[in-house]
């Protein structure tokens, strides 16, 4: 079966290793998860922090393997793996890097957050790793069924993670809510796959594109268009784009903060990977049909996310709505990619989306990291951040950096990310969308200012609980803050890497 995939330009003797090695990031993550679960169950209680260490190491290893694979792709060109089921291209590897970096940072955050609680143990970390493997499959899938497998792997792990604080009602509620609504969305997505299969005769993205190209226009359009509509509903739910965002604030608020960080970073990166695979890679000849849908989703996400974030009083909900608005920004990049979907020379759309998802992943983990440290398992009300600058100046500085970056202030990674997608949009002459995006960014800036205001200018309540920064969480936040600033000051290397991203089918 694999022999079909041999690229004649490659040395045939070398080929099997390349293929196994190409899959290595996923294999390492799954292996790490199994190791944690099996060995964790069979051995006595592990020393503190060992599970988190295992999880971080596994993710780091997978990330390094992805970087090595990236170089291989640079040298030998992209290809498809496992009978065309997975794409082995720079897009997939970039998504792998984003997701593994997220797992690494989130593991550091989780460590002392669940330590000495009944929730401690290897399970949470194993779920992170499984979810990451699912996310990577989503972003590298070259077959809709495979993509669905990845999506379900990621989603099921996330449902459990959301409910993983077993002593907390909001956490259970958030897990259940996510599960029910997510199950709905998955059903939509699956039905969409079925309809597209009916229209094209294949679920393989490469074969789909060939089939559509060979069919006279209009023959099976109705089936495929209906399929696209359902696929977009499913994907819109996963990326938390308005009007499919309703679950996000509740789930983000109820889930344990590190899990929220994971959903907002790795979850979003994987979901946008899937959006790109399905729409840009898989359905380029229908780009005129789905591009307007993306415009509507983008505008709604930007406006709804911005406006509703203003009226929140809970920081986690604020950040949840702001992540809806960030999804809108990412959709601006997808919209730009729509204009050149399937063309030989892609515009800046895909590379800007990938750049955004890396930069956003790091800074959103940093943001929720600070929330984790400050609020703990308590309600993350705005008042609990009062006077943080006096109580924990460095933490306040870090949070300020993250918030400024979310607002898109220059010299932070957030500015570079926004610049990238807006630039991609303007290059395709989507001026109106660009202006709407920037104006809504002003509205969300108000939210970030409110948080900064309470940190810097308000005094803490007398009975405010003391904030202590655990070592590993501190490391994660420091890494995220440093990266946010460094990428803002000198983004050229990252931009160069993302501009070489191409899709293969």
């Amino acid at each position, binding site marked *: 079966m694999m022999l079909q995939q041999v690229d004649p330009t490659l040395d045939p003797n070398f080929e099997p290793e390349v293929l196994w090695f190409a899959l290595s990031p996923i294999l390492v993550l799954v292996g790490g998860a199994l190791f944690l679960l099996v060995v964790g169950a069979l051995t006595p209680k592990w020393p503190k922090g060992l599970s988190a260490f295992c999880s971080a190491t596994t993710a780091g290893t997978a990330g390094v393997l992805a970087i090595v694979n990236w170089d291989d792709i640079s040298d030998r060109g992209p290809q498809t793996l496992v009978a065309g089921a997975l794409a082995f291209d720079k897009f997939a590897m970039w998504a792998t890097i984003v997701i593994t970096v997220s797992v690494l940072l989130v593991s550091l955050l989780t460590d002392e957050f669940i330590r000495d609680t009944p929730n401690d143990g290897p399970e949470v970390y194993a779920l992170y790793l499984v979810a990451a493997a699912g996310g990577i499959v989503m972003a590298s899938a070259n077959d809709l069924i495979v993509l669905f497998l990845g999506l379900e792997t990621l989603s099921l792990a996330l449902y459990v993670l959301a409910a993983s604080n077993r002593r907390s009602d909001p956490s259970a509620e958030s897990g259940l809510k996510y599960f029910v609504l997510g199950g709905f969305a998955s059903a939509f997505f699956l039905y969409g796959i079925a309809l597209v299969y009916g229209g094209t005769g294949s679920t393989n993205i490469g074969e789909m594109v060939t089939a559509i190209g060979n069919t006279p226009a209009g023959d099976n359009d109705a089936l495929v268009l209906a399929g696209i509509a359902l696929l977009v509903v499913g994907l819109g739910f996963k990326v938390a784009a308005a009007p499919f965002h309703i679950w996000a604030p509740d789930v983000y608020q109820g889930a344990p903060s590190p899990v929220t960080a994971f959903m907002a970073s790795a979850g979003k990166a994987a979901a946008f990977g899937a959006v790109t695979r399905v729409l840009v890679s898989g359905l380029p000849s229908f780009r005129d049909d789905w591009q307007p849908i993306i415009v509507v989703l983008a505008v709604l996400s930007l406006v709804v996310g911005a406006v509703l974030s203003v009226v929140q009083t809970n920081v986690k909900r604020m950040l949840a709505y702001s992540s809806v608005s960030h999804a809108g920004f990412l959709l601006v990049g997808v919209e730009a990619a729509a204009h050149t979907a399937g063309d030989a020379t892609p515009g800046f759309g895909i590379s800007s989306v990938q750049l955004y998802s890396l930069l956003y992943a790091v800074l959103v983990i940093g943001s929720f990291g600070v929330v984790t440290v400050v609020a703990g398992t308590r309600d993350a009300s705005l008042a609990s951040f009062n006077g943080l600058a006096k109580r924990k100046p460095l933490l306040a500085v870090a949070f300020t950096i993250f918030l400024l970056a979310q607002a898109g202030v220059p010299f932070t990674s957030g500015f570079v990310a926004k610049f990238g997608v807006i630039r991609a949009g303007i290059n395709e002459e989507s001026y109106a969308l660009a202006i709407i995006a920037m104006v809504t960014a002003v509205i969300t800036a108000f939210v970030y*200012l409110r948080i900064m205001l309470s940190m810097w200018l308000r005094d803490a309540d007398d009975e405010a609980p003391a904030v202590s920064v655990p070592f590993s969480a501190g490391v994660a936040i420091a890494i995220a803050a440093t990266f946010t600033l460094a990428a803002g000051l000198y983004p050229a290397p990252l931009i160069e890497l993302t501009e070489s991203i191409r899709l293969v089918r």
Partner: protein
Amino acid sequence: MIAAEATSVGAGAFPLLSAMIFVPMIGATAVLLTTKSRPEFAKLIALLSSGMTGALTIYMLKEFDRGDAGFQMVSKHDWIEQWGIGWHLGVDGISLFLVVLTGILFPLAIVGVTPHHDEKPYLAWLLMLEAGVMGSFLSLDLFLFFIFFEIVLVPMYFLIGGWGYENREYAATKFYLYTFLGSAFMFVALIATAFIASDSLGGVTFDLVEIAEGGNIATTTARWLFFGFAIAFAVKVPIFPLHTWLPDAHTQAPTAGSVVLAGVMLKLGTYGFLRFGLYLFPEAAVWSRSLWLTLAVIGIIYGAIAATMQKDLKRLVAYSSVAHLGFIVLGTFAFTSQAITGSVIQMVNHGVSTGALFLFVGWIYERRKTRQIAELNGLQKVAPIFAAGFMVVMLSSIGVPGLNGFIGEYLILLGSFQTARWWTVVATAGVILAALYLLWAYQRVFHGEPDEDNQSFPELKLKEGLILLPFLVAIVFTGVYPKPLLDRIEPSVDRLVAHVAANSDVETDPSYTTQRGEFDNGHGEEHEDDEESHSEEEGEE
């Protein structure tokens, strides 16, 4: 043509302009690293770095070649190559004195005012603000300009919010959001400019000079883009009706914040119009001039009337800024060499005189803990030197001949009268209104018998006098002998006016474009002639 000139200077030499941005930035970092137990270190470092920046600007002034109309001391490096973004700095006659003003105003503001708490972050924010303002005035790359233009909001937000007065949170947020909203449009417009210009430039670049000289942007497109930029600048200036953030921000800001805000930050808007509006989109600027002239004149009259009504001295000065900046906008959109030269001079003058007025208001507040005009009276009796200093600064703000304000306003009105006659006629009324509100305020605050509360109003301290001295020197020197300034400003302004004339259908009559006659050929005496003739006219009025 300018691109060739631009690279002629500065290659390999000491990166003077970059240093002017990095010194305060490093200073800010150093201030943050000082220990809490030794607050005097923070102040010392802040003074040293801002003072050093000031010294660098003076050195730049000395090195500046007054005959060269192009950009000088250019520093050009790649920064984000993939996006066509470079670190491109340069100074010409239009930005020269604004940079010097920035360099001198900051150390004075740092010495002049002691914040009431948490000095360390306060100083760090001020230094960061200085780096941002410097960067905005020196940038010759659209992207670079934008990030400096944006980044100044953050320190200013924290300065107002952290060290301001009773209503500071509202004022700081309003200031930030207003300006940020304006920038949103500029952000889109500047990326679009780079892409649209790339068709004729053969590649995407954000370099101001390249786009302006070779951009070839279609007329209608350029008008849209111009408005994208103009909204950001109009908010920053602020032009009526986008001015409402200004009185709040000025009044609530700590004294040093107000000084810097009025002194240099408002000029980012008017400077932006000259450097980016007119230079990039000359045709669009000419096409929309009636709008800007009308809004400018409304601003002049409205600002003056609103100032007259104020009960709070600081708010009064804030509204007077709206009026003064109206004059600058009027001059900018008159498109004559004289008027634009006047605008550039007036930007500096306004920075000096309004900066000093805010210092005085700050000192009054420190002494009396109030800024209400009704609660102040008879201060001249108890503090005559203080009153005299205030008087000089105030007269400069009114535009009395012999002081700096007159030179700027006179040049603006003279230059505008030729191309925007009726607007100028109305604007002239603003000059009289300025006399009305400032003299009336002076009368209420300083004249009469002091009541009990004002009996013990302390006299001007030596330190305050020393801080005031540079302001007074600048006021009198510019008023009496403006030639050194004009000589340096005019070549660049002439070039800009010629650029506008060459790229638009504005009257190409040479008398509109090169009005240097009086100031170019003649020397000192002729200025005084001009002043005398005008002062006679004012006497008649």
